[in-house]
């Protein structure tokens, strides 16, 4: 019987996952099929959801671009550069970044970061304005998609760091010592022994970070001043919104078919993040089988 309970609990997890997909589909389909006149946005589903998908991908990609180099640096610092005794403590400190609730990130983003970013945006517009990304006009509140990406980068930094750190620590000692014995400097050792070994791990860590950034809600909802456009302009006051933020902002007041439309957009988000996580985990798992040989 004990085995039965255990098996039941395990199956319940499969059921839940299937349930998430099924319930979202059942409640979402009326939203997808809804007539434009019946929903608040007054648009068909595809034109309604496309700017949101675009914003979601743009913000997450930017966050990844900022976070991954820093995360690799931090992970390398903890695993190979910091004094060995302090490494674990530094790891805990970085993990604290993951413990900060998202609503606190949002509040900090509005109250502190956005203000700090304004001079930077102004400078970018003045000096790099010829690049379409920084065409401006620069936002005076700082609540742009670039600010949001910085906040998102902070939020995904701990998970990317944690996975990179684990993999750097697993690098075979003999490879590292061989490199050092041949006269390599520490950086050359990292480049020749650690990075080739850790490459797939870094890729999957980044994808897990991407999954987090895609689904992060509150920080985006609070910081971004969104207006549902499709633009690559990162520093102006008109920004594309993201799926998650749009749901959080519209859901409390929504009614009727608008609710279904929002749930349908949630389904789109679920499919995207599920795909990203699925691939990332598959890479991690495949790697596990190989690394046993070392």
């Amino acid at each position, binding site marked *: 019987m004990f085995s039965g309970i255990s098996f039941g609990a395990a199956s319940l997890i499969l059921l839940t996952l299937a349930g998430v997909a099924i319930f979202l589909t059942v409640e979402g389909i009326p939203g997808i099929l809804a007539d434009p006149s019946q929903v608040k946005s007054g648009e068909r589903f595809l034109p309604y959801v496309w700017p949101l998908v675009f914003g979601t991908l743009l913000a997450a990609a930017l966050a990844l671009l900022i976070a991954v180099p820093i995360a690799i640096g931090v992970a*390398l610092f903890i695993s190979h550069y910091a004094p060995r005794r302090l490494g674990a403590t530094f790891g805990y400190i970085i993990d*604290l970044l993951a413990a*900060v609730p998202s609503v606190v990130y949002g509040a900090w983003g509005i109250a502190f970061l956005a203000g700090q970013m304004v001079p930077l945006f102004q400078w970018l517009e003045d000096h790099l304005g010829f690049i379409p990304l920084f065409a401006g006009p620069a936002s005076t509140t700082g609540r742009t998609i670039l600010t949001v990406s910085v906040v998102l980068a902070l939020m995904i930094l701990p998970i990317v760091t944690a996975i990179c750190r684990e993999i750097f620590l697993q690098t075979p000692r003999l490879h590292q010592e061989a490199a050092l014995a041949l006269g390599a400097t520490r950086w050359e050792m990292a480049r020749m022994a650690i990075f080739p070994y850790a490459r797939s791990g870094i890729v999957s860590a980044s994808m897990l970070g991407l999954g987090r950034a895609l689904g992060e809600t509150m920080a985006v909802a609070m910081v971004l001043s969104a207006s549902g456009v499709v633009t690559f302009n990162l520093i102006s006051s008109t920004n594309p919104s993201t799926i998650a933020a749009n749901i959080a902002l519209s859901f409390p007041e929504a009614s009727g078919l608008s609710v279904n439309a929002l749930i349908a957009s949630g389904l789109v*988000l679920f499919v995207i993040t599920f795909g990203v996580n699925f691939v990332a985990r598959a890479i991690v798992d495949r790697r596990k089988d190989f690394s046993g040989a070392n």
Partner: protein
Amino acid sequence: MTSTLEPTRPGRGGPDLHTRLSSRTLPSWTAPVLAGAGAVIVVGGLLLGLGLLRPLLLAWALQLALPVASRFVEGGRKATDRLVTVLVYSAFGLALLPLGSIIWTVVSKGVPVLSAEFFTYSMRNVVGEGGGIYHAIIGTLLITGAATVISVPIGLFTSIYLVEYGEGKRMARWIRFLVDVMTGIPSIVAGLFAYALFVLFFGEGVRMGIGGSVALSVLMIPVVVRSCEEMLKLVPNELREASYALGVPKWRTISKVVVPTALAGIVTGVTLAIARVIGETAPLLIVAGYTDSVNFNLFDGRMATLPVFAYTSIRNPGVPPEFSLDRAWGAALVLLIIVMLLNLVARLVSYLFSPKGEK
């Protein structure tokens, strides 16, 4: 990589090992002195009231003198190495800065708000000044508590299945994989799932505390499963075999030997899982909603929670906005303290109660 050996010059005697094998190096005090100078600049800047950012940038730029000097004294390879060392240390510093800034912002804005009234009053009929977070604390405790009650048995039994029963089975492999994938479900999707589920039973526009618990459970179960699984795997097989040898059935072995041995780790894992979900805002905003009054009933109507309270206070501050924003910072501080405490408790439990051989 380029070769570092110089060709041996003809016409000399035996190789002079001393000059041949060591090249010029910067004195070992260079790096600490530069770091010290940087620290002096930052502290000096703070004392002179120049703010933090500019002195910090200056101090950082100063560190780049090290690779530059190294380029001329020690050559390119060493210089690259030193440059990367500076960059790696900077990356860590760059990650610490926002953490410090977040904690400082929340503490400095939140502490003045904390008072006895703040913890014992709800927001019922409060306009402008006054009021508190009593209703939100109650809601957070109830909803998170219910989520824990749902998640821990499911998570624990799943991990028991994975470790004790499912070894090598295809089903177990798939469950383990999907649990990993499930950790990546966006919290707002979990909220929508709970809403879609409850709509089936209670009709459109449902808002309930227990819905929030269900949403949080979806986020919490995978975390509990993974940490419990790791802990159960650590239990030595000898213990199980000794128990079987005494004729104890499998289920009693698990409940009397395996789980008690792993208990400290399980408690740590569950505490960390609670810390992870207690700050979730989005799913609660969707399905638990927000109210100004105290609500003790998970199954009836809207319930306020700390994160949603902070969010709503910032989003709809009313006129004048200061009081509401102050309360938001107070709630954010309380939330941050709870999360940090939970993390601390988890570490303490795992440190104090882990089997002695492991330390």
